[in-house]
Structure formats: C-alpha cells, structure tokens
C-alpha cells in the first residue's frame, strides 16, 4: 500500500525535487565538514545556516501552498503556526541551558528569574525532554489550527473574511506573546541557547546536521503533500477550491476536508518553525507580525501557487534576494518587495513555476497539434494551470 501511495504521489518533477533535496542534505554538510576552509568547494558554516533557514522558509511556503494553492484558503496567519512551532523548540532549548544561564538557576530560565518567578509555570513542564517538545511542535500549531478552523469552516467563513480573521488571530498572538506575564520571555523572546540533544548548537557539525534535517523534512513534506494532492481526496480539494458550493451539493463534507488540510498545513509550518529556531538562535514575538505571514504568501505567489515545487523555489528566490538586497541597498529592500507583490499579482499570477509549466504544456500541445491537425485549439484550452495543478 505504501509503495502504491509512493508511486501515485511521485510524478517526475516531485521525484526530481525530492532527490535533489536529499542530495543537498548529504552534499552540503559534507562539503562543509570534510573540506578544508581554503578548498574551492568549501561551504562556509554561515552559508550552511543561511540556506538551512531558507529551507525552513521553503517548508513554510509549501505548507501555505497546500491550503492556498489547493484549498483556496488564503491564510494570513501561517507565520503564527511557524512561530508556535519555533516557541515549542525554543522552550526545549531554554530548558537545556539549565544552570549555565547568567543567574545560574538550574530550573528556571533567566527571564523568569529576572521577573522574580519562583517556580516553573505548568506549561513549561515536560519541555526538558526532546520527544515531548518535538510532539508539541506539531501538536500546538495543529490544535490551534484545528480549533480555529473548526469554528471558521463550520460557519462557512471564507474568502477574504477568513484571511482577515487569520490575520486577527496572528495579531492577537503577537500581542499575547509580547506580554511578560505570559511566561514566554516577553518581547525579548527566547534566546542564548546552548545545546540541542547534547550537541553544542554553535558547532559546525550541529549546524550541518540541522541543515540536513531541514532538507530531509522538506523532502518528506514534499512527498506527503504531493501524496495528499494527488490522491482522490486532493482532487476533491481542488474541486472545492474552484467551486465550493457545487462540491458541497455533490455531497462532500467540505468543512471537514478544509479542516484536515488546514491542520496538516499548520503542523508542517510548526515543524518549519522548530527547525528555524536552532539555526537562527532566537525566537521572539516579532515572528507573529502580520506582515510576516503576508510575506510567506508572496513567496508562494512568486514561485507559483498550487505547484508544490513553486513555493520552495519562490521562498529561496525571495529570501536570497532579500539577503543580497538588504546587505547592498538596505533602503530599497521594501521597495523591491512591494514592487514584487504588485508585479507578480499583475503579470505573473501563476508564478515562475506555473508560467513555465504553462509554457511547456502549450509547446507540448502545439507539437501534438502539428502531428494531428485540427484538435490543437481545444487542447490549449484544456491545459489551463488549474488542470495542471490537479494532475
């Protein structure tokens, strides 16, 4: 059954992309650890961490693509799930510091000592164990998405209304996490991590391993989402994206399907956040900024929504551009990002990958038409990007 799932879920592009990611997961750490620093192929550690960060962003964009590209839910709160996963990981890393903090308290993180707290709040229990934290990384975002989605989809809040209330959700979380009383470090967030699973978090080996883990997680998520969207369930998802009422009238429980996709997507975002935090070394409430969630949307849009590969490419392209831009012309990054939003929506509504696919499909259809005259016009019409995405 698993093999049949795999066979079904892997078309050629997904297979190539997943294989590429696996190769990266081996190659980049190897080039970082095994070559001398002056070797021409040597990858410096900061680049490993930087690209590791991009891969977690790519995972976040992929998670958004599952709901936006295939389900029509434009979530403007996905960075919130990302940040929640990050906080769960951050809490584990905080507990790992133990007595090495500046106050030397073996149980309480520094900021709690600073706030004069006497004991650990109940929601911090268990985060000293990795398996528990790892569980929470998926459970907390998943649970919040489930509850939120259950309310929202049941009462048929959709379209822009849903976007606005997801934005309100992340805004409310932003305000909440800024409060010192919440017990998540207030506006300083969680930082100053020492080690993860016993390994020094600053060490080259750990960084390389985190990169490999990010690449693996991304490859795995790609296969899973591809499996979801290529299954029968995925076809119905696309149907409800394009004509929700009609799908409902056909007898599908639209709200359940949306809820499933939304929850899975939030869990993926949580995993992305958990991989992000040890690589950048900090998590703070700024991650909940509504602007961040909207930025995720543009990564997905640039790459091409509903293409799975597109969001990954988009996230890496936009963030790579951001890194270069903010270093070279810090003043102009927001102009560039803003312009990107406008230009992509106006001229590239299908994104880079979607447009390329469209072009390839056209050419294929054209060639087919050259062989059998007469049917070419119809063929072109049928290879609309939606049909492509659903394949």
């Amino acid at each position, binding site marked *: 059954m698993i093999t049949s799932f795999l066979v079904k879920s892997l078309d050629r592009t997904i297979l190539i992309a997943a294989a590429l990611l696996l190769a990266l997961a081996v190659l980049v750490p190897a080039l970082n650890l095994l070559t001398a620093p002056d070797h021409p192929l040597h990858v410096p550690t900061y680049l490993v961490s930087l690209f590791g960060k991009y891969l977690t962003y790519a995972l976040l964009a992929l998670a958004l693509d599952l709901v936006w590209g295939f389900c029509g839910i434009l979530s403007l709160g996905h960075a919130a799930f990302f940040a929640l996963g990050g906080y769960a990981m951050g809490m584990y890393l905080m507990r790992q510091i133990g007595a090495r903090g500046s106050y030397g308290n073996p149980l309480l993180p520094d900021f709690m000592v600073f706030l004069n707290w006497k004991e650990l709040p109940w929601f911090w229990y268990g985060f000293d164990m990795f398996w528990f934290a790892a569980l929470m990384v998926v459970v907390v975002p998943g649970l919040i998405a489930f509850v939120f989605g259950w309310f*929202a989809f049941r009462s048929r809040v959709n379209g822009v209304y849903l976007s606005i*209330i997801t934005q309100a959700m992340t805004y409310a979380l932003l305000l909440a996490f800024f409060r010192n009383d919440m017990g998540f470090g207030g506006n300083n967030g969680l930082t100053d991590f020492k080690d993860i699973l016993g390994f020094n978090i600053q060490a080259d080996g750990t960084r390389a391993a985190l990169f490999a883990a990010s690449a693996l997680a991304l490859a795995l998520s790609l296969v899973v989402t591809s499996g979801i969207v290529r299954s029968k369930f995925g076809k119905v998802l696309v149907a409800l994206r394009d004509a929700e009422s009609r799908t409902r009238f056909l007898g599908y429980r639209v709200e359940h399907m949306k809820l499933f996709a939304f929850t899975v997507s939030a869990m993926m975002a949580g995993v992305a956040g958990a991989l992000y935090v040890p690589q950048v070394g900090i998590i703070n409430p700024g991650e909940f900024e509504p602007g961040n969630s909207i930025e995720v949307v543009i990564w997905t849009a640039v790459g091409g929504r509903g293409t799975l590969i597109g969001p990954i490419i988009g996230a890496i392209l936009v963030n790579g551009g951001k890194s270069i831009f903010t270093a070279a012309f810090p003043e102009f990054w*927001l102009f560039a990002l*803003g312009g*990107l939003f406008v230009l992509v*929506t106006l001229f590239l509504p299908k994104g880079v990958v979607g447009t390329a696919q469209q072009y390839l499909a056209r050419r294929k259809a054209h060639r087919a038409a050259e062989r059998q005259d007469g049917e070419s016009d119809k063929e072109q019409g049928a290879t609309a990007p939606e049909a492509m995405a659903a394949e």
Partner: protein
Amino acid sequence: MHRIARTLLLAFLLVAAIAPGLRAEEPLRELIDALGQAKLSDMDEHIAALAKTGDPKVVPVLEALGEGNLYARKADGQVFLTKESGSTLSLTDPVSGESVGEAPKAALSKVKVNNGVRRAVRSALGSLTLLSPDRDARLKAAQSVLQSPNAEALGAIEDALAAEKDGEVRALLEQARATTLIISDRPVEEKRQAVRLLKENGGREALSILSAALNAADDSLKPDIEAAVASIEQSQALWAAGQNVWYGLSLGSVLLLAAIGLAITFGVMGIINMAHGEMVMLGAYTTFLVQEVIRDSLPGLFDWSLAIALPLAFLVTGTVGLAMERGVIRFLYGRPLETLLATWGISLILQQAVRTIFGPTNREVGNPSWMSGAFELGGLTVTWNRLWIILFALAVFAALLFLLKKTPMGLQMRAVTQNRRMASSMGIRTPWVDALTFALGSGIAGMAGVALSQIDNVSPNLGQGYIIDSFMVVVFGGVGNLWGTLVGAFSLGILNKFLEPYAGAVLGKILVLVLIILFIQKRPRGLFALKGRAVEA
C-alpha cells in the same frame, strides 16, 4: 480661646488702622525680627503668629521666607527682604516697604528654611490671602486651604466666608471649611453637617479627607462618615463608568475615522485595500508639511493649520488612491485575494517612500490652541482634542452618508455595487465610478490622518497600527453598511475601554480580537448584513 484672641487682635488692628504710626508697626517688626533668631523647630509658631496679625505686609515677608530671600543683619538682628545683585544684596525694610540700600552678603545671615517651614508658609499665606481684595488671589488661596487642610486655619476660613461675595470662591470656601472642620476640635453636630456637605460635593479629595478622618473620629460620628464614604465611592464608580464610556467613545471615533474610508473601498466596492493605513499616514504627513510651511512663513495662521490640511490631505490621498485604482487595482477586479497582495505591496512601497523622505523617526505635529487643554464636566475630564475628533468623525460620517444617499454620484456608486452589469447597461460609466469611489475612500482616509495626527505619533508606521483594527470594525459592523461601521466602531471602542481596567490594555485588546473572531463564526456577515443575492457574489 482662639476666638477671643482673634477678636482682640481684630480690635487691635482696627485701632492700629485708625491710628497709624509706630505703635502699630513695632509689634510687627518684633515678630518679623523674631524670625531671624528662631530655630527651625520653632518656625511654625513664629509663622503662625505672623499670620495671625492679618496684616497685608506679612504677605511679602512670608513669600520671601518661602523663597529664601529673607536675611537677618548680623549687627542688630534686623530682618530684611533682599534681592541679589552681584555679590551684594539690596535690602528692603519689611515694615515700611522702603529700600534701605545695599549690604555685602557677609554682613547678613539667611533665615533658614526647610520643607516643613515652606509648608507652614504656604498654609499661612493661604489663609492670609483669603481676605485679599483680588478675586483670583482669593480663589487660589481657597484652593490651597482646601488641598492642605489645617485645623488652625479654620477661624480664618470662617471669617473669609462671612465676608465673601463671589459664588465660586464661596463654594470652595464652604468645602474648605467642612474639610477643616472635621479635623478640628469642634462639636460633633457641626462635624456631622460638615460630613454631609462633603458627601454632597463628593470628589476624590473629599473621599481621602473622610477616610483619613475616619480613624480619629468620634464613635458617634463614624457611621456618618462611613455612609458618606460609601456614597461618594458609589458616585465615583458611576463617574468612572462614565469616564470609561467617554474614553470608549473617543477610541470608537478614532476607529470610525480609520475604518470609514475602508467601509467604502472594502464595504462598498469589495476591494481589500491593505494600503488603507498608509493613506491615513499620508494624511498625517500632509498635516505635518502644512504645519512646517506655516511655522516658517505664516506663524499667525497656526490655528488654521488643520483646516488647511484637511482639504489638502483629501486631495493628496485621493490622488494617490486614484492612481492606485487606475494603475493596479482595476486589473484585479474579481480577484480579491490578489488585490490584497498587490495593495500590501503598495503599502510597503508607500511606507518606505515616506521613511526615505521624512526619516524613520516621529515627526512633530502640534495641536492648535483650540484643540489643546481640557475641561471638567462633573467628574469627567474632557480633553478638547478628543471632543473635536469625536465631532469630526461624526461629521465625516454624516457627510459620507449624505453623499451616498442623496447625490447622483452616490446613486451611481450604489447602483454599481448592487449590479455592475445592469448599471453599465443603464449608461453608468462603471470604471469611472470605481475609480472615483476608490479615490473617495482614500481621500477620507487622508482626512482621518489629519485628525489622528493630533493624538498619535506621526511616523511611517502610523498606518500599520490601524489596519487590522479598521478591518475588524468593518467586518464586525457588516460589510457594505455604513451604519454598521458606525455601530461597530463605537461598540468596539467602548467594549475595549471597559475590558481594560479588568484585563489590562493588551489583554483587553486580545479579548476583543478573540470576541470578534468568535462573533464572525456566529454571524459571518457582520452585525448588519446585506440581505439578498448580492451577498453570494
């Protein structure tokens, strides 16, 4: 005892006034000179003795004492009012009021003061000036004796009360008398009346006086005081609720201003304009520029700066809105999510542009004189700028309602909203109506920016603070319904301010957001939903 002494003193002063001369001045001089020899611990008595004379000449002496300008001559111990001039002091005789030349500092010793002495001076001055012929001085004196009640001053207050004609001063004096009476050693019956008077007047001071007096009071008086405290507390709670409503209305008016333009673009046209907040910001910066020009060239016009900025802001943001609609949004009709992204991009560009031009820091926008200050209304403190903003928000609302309901343009706008194709067939140029409607919504946001520049920091991030709130207001009130926006803005404002005392500002805001999210589950189309087929479009 006091009374007899005072009567004697008054009689004495009367005689002194009839027969002016050295005899009347001598005891005063003695009293003043005594200040020079007094120890700090005895100063209170000396000051009280001086105050008791009731002589207006005492006033400058006490003032000088309080300011540290009273010096005693080392040679004979005579005390002078002094004024510093270089290394010497110019001396003034306190009794005759004449200048008596200068003396080196070394020849004089300063009459020592500390905070205890200054306090005694203040309260003595308070009761002394109660009889001043100048009304404002009396008013000030009455306020000062009311704020720092002193049982010794009771007699003086009663005298002043007997002589006072001015209603406002009288009312203050009555309160001051009641306040001092309670801490004096008068009979219980009089105190009871005083408690009653305080209870009727209410206020925070009365509450603290009564609570302070409660411990020292007679057992027979205690129930009265307790009842009075309870009643004042109750009325204070009512006023506090009233104040909350006021704050809520004020917040509501801000929300209304921020959201009303959105109610047009989002509510009427269905465009998600994420750059709406930036229109507000542009309006605020227009105000800043207008004020800069006025400060530089026409300072006299400063009070008119807002009136000038208002139409300008409307034009500026309206033009930007028009350009946005023609340049970007019109290609995205029917794709609301894409519109959202594109306008978000525009908002980033506008923010960065303003940051590049004006810098990232807050810019100073001043309040015209008619917008600064506050006045008391019962137990409410009403600031003028908040009041004007509420009125302005309502005026904008009314104007917009009129425009939509009573003008040909409004008619066309509503027609296009309800059925675009039919409106088009009837000869309405729908693209133009779209463009103008969007410009109108943006222009109104700009006018809101002029008002909000008065109460918020004018920085490139100004708009971002409002965008989520304004969407909440529009969605809560019901899309496509101006009245819904009005009700939504004010109810959210008041709800927020009522949650604040219990939950704190941030948690209150979170609660409101959660409540709205839950509310939308219940009524996905808001408080006042449009009915009919248009909804499903």
